């Protein structure tokens, strides 16, 4: 999903001013670049720090905007300290800030001071997926009766075309309940859930919807999204959980808008 930006050739002009200027922007230890000064021989330490501050703070703000539930769980101060480390180590590589933060959940998972909150990274994964779904292309979803015209003996061979918004996040923790409780700003209900929860993220219209998947539902959907047949996906799900409910999962995925259409088998 990561957008790889094509970076053009460097121009014939001097690269030096940008190279001299950028080096200290994300490194608080480095000196003010000698290329710049204040007016009338004034110093430029605080002046250059304005740019440093703009860059760092705006990128921390960007992460806070993408990961609000994560921030609510940790508190603002903890979150911003954690985000500052990440921003300096992994600044954006795209001018589209809504693409930023894909490496942040992994960073959280390894972050020394977040080890006591082992579900935090999964909540962040759901938030990152939420934003992908929010910006995904506007596409129709599968009709409720889409499978009705398929002869029963052909059902197991059916493949589906995934909707561009669909994302699946698996968690060993009740990540969906924790996400839901922390995503809004209102008073928080106590979280009763203790079991592992897998999330399905879709956007059938304009609103992003997060669902808690039933047992083996994530395996089933992930297989379908990757292009396997209904038969193959169901077999994998039954293998993972004997309580896998095939009709309920098919109805659920259609209702959620996880797929656009039945794959006709034509090359796309």
């Amino acid at each position, binding site marked *: 999903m990561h957008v790889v930006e094509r970076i053009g050739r460097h121009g014939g002009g001097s690269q030096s001013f940008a190279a001299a200027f950028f080096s200290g922007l994300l490194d608080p230890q480095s000196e003010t670049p000698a290329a710049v000064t204040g007016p009338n021989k004034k110093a430029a330490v605080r002046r250059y720090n304005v740019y440093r501050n703009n860059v760092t703070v705006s990128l921390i703000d960007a992460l806070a905007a993408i990961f609000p539930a994560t921030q609510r769980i940790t508190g603002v101060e903890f979150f911003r300290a954690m985000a500052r480390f990440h921003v300096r180590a992994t600044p954006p590589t795209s001018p589209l800030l809504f693409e930023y933060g894909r490496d942040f959940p992994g960073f959280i998972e390894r972050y020394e001071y977040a080890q006591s909150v082992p579900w935090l990274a999964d909540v962040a994964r759901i938030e990152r997926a939420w934003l992908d779904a929010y910006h995904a292309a*506007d596409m129709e979803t599968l009709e409720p009766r889409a499978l009705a015209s398929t002869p029963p003996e052909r059902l197991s061979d059916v493949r589906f075309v995934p909707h561009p918004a669909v994302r699946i996040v698996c968690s060993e923790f009740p990540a969906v309940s924790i996400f839901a409780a922390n995503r809004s700003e209102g008073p928080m209900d106590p979280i009763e859930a203790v079991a592992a929860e897998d999330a399905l993220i879709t956007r059938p219209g304009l609103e992003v919807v997060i669902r808690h998947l039933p047992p083996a539902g994530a395996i089933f959907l992930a297989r379908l999204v990757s292009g396997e047949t209904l038969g193959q996906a169901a077999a994998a799900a039954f293998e993972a959980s004997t309580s896998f409910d095939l009709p309920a999962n098919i109805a659920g995925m259609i209702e959620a808008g996880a797929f656009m259409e039945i794959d006709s088998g034509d090359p796309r």
Partner: protein
Amino acid sequence: MRAVSELQGSHAAGRLRLPAHAIAGLAGTSFKHEHLPAILAEATKGGFFEVHAENYMGAGGQPHHALKKIRRDYPISLHGVAMSIGGPQSLNQNHLERFRTLVDRFEPALVSEHLAWSTHETTYFNDLLPLPYTEATLRRVSEHIDEVQQAIRQPILLENPSTYVVFRESTMGETDFIRGLAQRTGCGLLLDINNVFVSATNHGYSALDYLSDFPIEHVGEIHLAGHAEQVDDEGDRLLIDSHDGPVADAVWKLFDIVLSRSGPIPTLVEWDSNIPDWPVLKAEAEAAQDILNRHATPFISGKVHARR
């Protein structure tokens, strides 16, 4: 360099699928999604809205939906913040293509970008970074403006920056540099009066002198915004272009002076953080509109503005 008239001509020949709302003489505000219900509930549709292009570069979803609704009733101004036109490296071709697609999709009345850079190699810094003013950078930035204008088949307005440092290697003043860009590329200019005030304070020159030197005949849009205050290493006032509050009195005064020379020019009140409720932002735009209206009369039969 391609002549600007040719660019404009080809744009005019293109098909227009959206209502062609006029923007001349209007005041507008930044468009913020939280204001959408209040804006849609307005009984009279006046003014215009400006959006940051990058926020609409996703594939679909609510941003496009909201902007489509706004565009139906208002002229919009498409304001790019991440083209990195002022940098030495080549423009990001993916980004240029996304920008072109947006211009095509929303048919903005105004299209603008910044005299600044924000990307170096593969890192995007999310800030408007400064550049030295030399013959070499003038040539490079002109090439970039040319490239953008060729891609979107119309001229852009280039915004003067707010800056906190100067480059030792600079050999010309900012107004000469900007005039040079306008002359070489046929681009128009976006005069950010708050940026003028911020830079003038930070660098110890007169904002009025700067404005007298500024090639006002190329200005197609004005920006007004709020700023914050810090101190520099010597303990003197250092202003920060923060867009987080109301327009300062000094900036309103400068705006009045500029208009007394130029006549009305579409004017935007920018407000990008600590965003107030819609009525507060709307009142700022109305204050700008009052000043625009006051300067309209003497210009009605006389001078028609060069660009809009």
